[in-house]
């Protein structure tokens, strides 16, 4: 009887030892893997982003923006989706502007000038407005989860943005100055055309990069 009890006890011990040996993950570790985590601000935030959305950023001080980081990320996603569509609209507008603007600059056809000048001017305001709206949606969007220093399509996008942003900023001022300053009309119009050309090709290259590069 005693031997039998010992044997049963031994079987139970061995059985549970085996089970225990198979319980390969500590309970604490097992729980942690599924526990939702508090997410903070990312490391390596770009300078402009940290001025706006950093811990001591302008929006934090003015209490602008959502209450939680998760809501910030949802807002970011919406803003960048609109940024994408407005960017495509702007590119289409700039393609038209580049074509018409070049013909207005090069041509001696008064009829073409009469037919297209006002449209070019109106489209100028339109593309400027859409470009700046699209840029604002990106600049003011809450920070992403991650930032790194790898060269990727997003790095290329940011580099190209410096070029097309600065040339787009200059565009209306160059045109306005050219109209106001008759003596420097040719030089300023020349600069207006060059800035427009750079803006259009930089934005086109940017769109290709963000679409097809990894």
């Amino acid at each position, binding site marked *: 009887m005693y031997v039998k009890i010992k044997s049963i006890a031994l079987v139970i011990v061995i059985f549970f030892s085996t089970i225990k040996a198979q319980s390969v993950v500590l309970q604490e570790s097992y729980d942690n*893997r599924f526990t939702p985590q508090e997410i903070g601000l990312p490391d390596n935030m770009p300078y402009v982003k940290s001025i706006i959305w950093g811990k001591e950023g302008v929006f934090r001080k003015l209490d602008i923006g959502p209450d939680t980081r998760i809501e910030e990320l949802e807002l970011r996603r919406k803003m960048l989706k609109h940024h994408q569509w407005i960017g*495509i609209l702007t590119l289409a507008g700039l393609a038209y502007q580049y074509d018409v603007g070049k013909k207005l600059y090069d041509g001696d056809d008064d009829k073409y000038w009469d037919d297209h000048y006002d449209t070019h001017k109106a489209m100028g305001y339109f593309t400027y407005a859409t470009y700046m709206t699209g840029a604002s949606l990106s600049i003011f969007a809450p920070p992403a989860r991650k930032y790194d220093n*790898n060269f990727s399509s997003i790095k290329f996008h940011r580099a190209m943005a410096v070029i097309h942003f600065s040339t787009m900023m200059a565009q209306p001022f160059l045109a306005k100055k050219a109209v106001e300053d008759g003596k420097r009309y040719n030089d300023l119009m020349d600069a207006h055309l060059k800035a427009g050309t750079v803006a259009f090709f930089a934005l086109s290259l940017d769109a290709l990069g963000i679409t097809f590069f*990894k």
Partner: protein
Amino acid sequence: MRKLTFILFFQFLFSQAIPVEIDSEKSFLSYEGKHPAHNWTGISKDIKGSFIFDKDQPILSSVDLYIPVFSFDSGNSNRDSNMLDVVEDYFYPSVSFTSSSITKEKEQYYINGVMFFHGIEKKMRIPVKFIIENDTIVVDTNFIISLSDHNIKRPSFLTIKIKDNIEIKLHLVGSI
């Protein structure tokens, strides 16, 4: 009763089931995302959990692995951030796989188990290959997961959504 005791005792004594120490430098899990404009690969070397391997009877082995979603790196932080948004890692920080059994069919091993991803549990049968050299085991597997199966809203670019099927590749190196 004595016979059973001896069988269990000796099985226990000579059991070759030993924990595998995962080499985090050489091991990785990758996913391949596809969009008509471009494909990309995200890699994580942060494989956690445990792997118990039975040298004599591999079908008695078991795995319980998990990977923090945040650890995946595709070389483009913007894309990684978008991925973290769609898989909502702030609610579901890890993707895990726990085996329930291992079977062998025509020289091919299969791990049966449950994948937990984006709050959805999905039963899976994954084909695996393994090689043992001295005290090192190398496990390789490729399989497909469906984003819609895990209730993940596929992100889109220029109105085109990424492909629903994501190819997963695991290369696990460990010492036994």
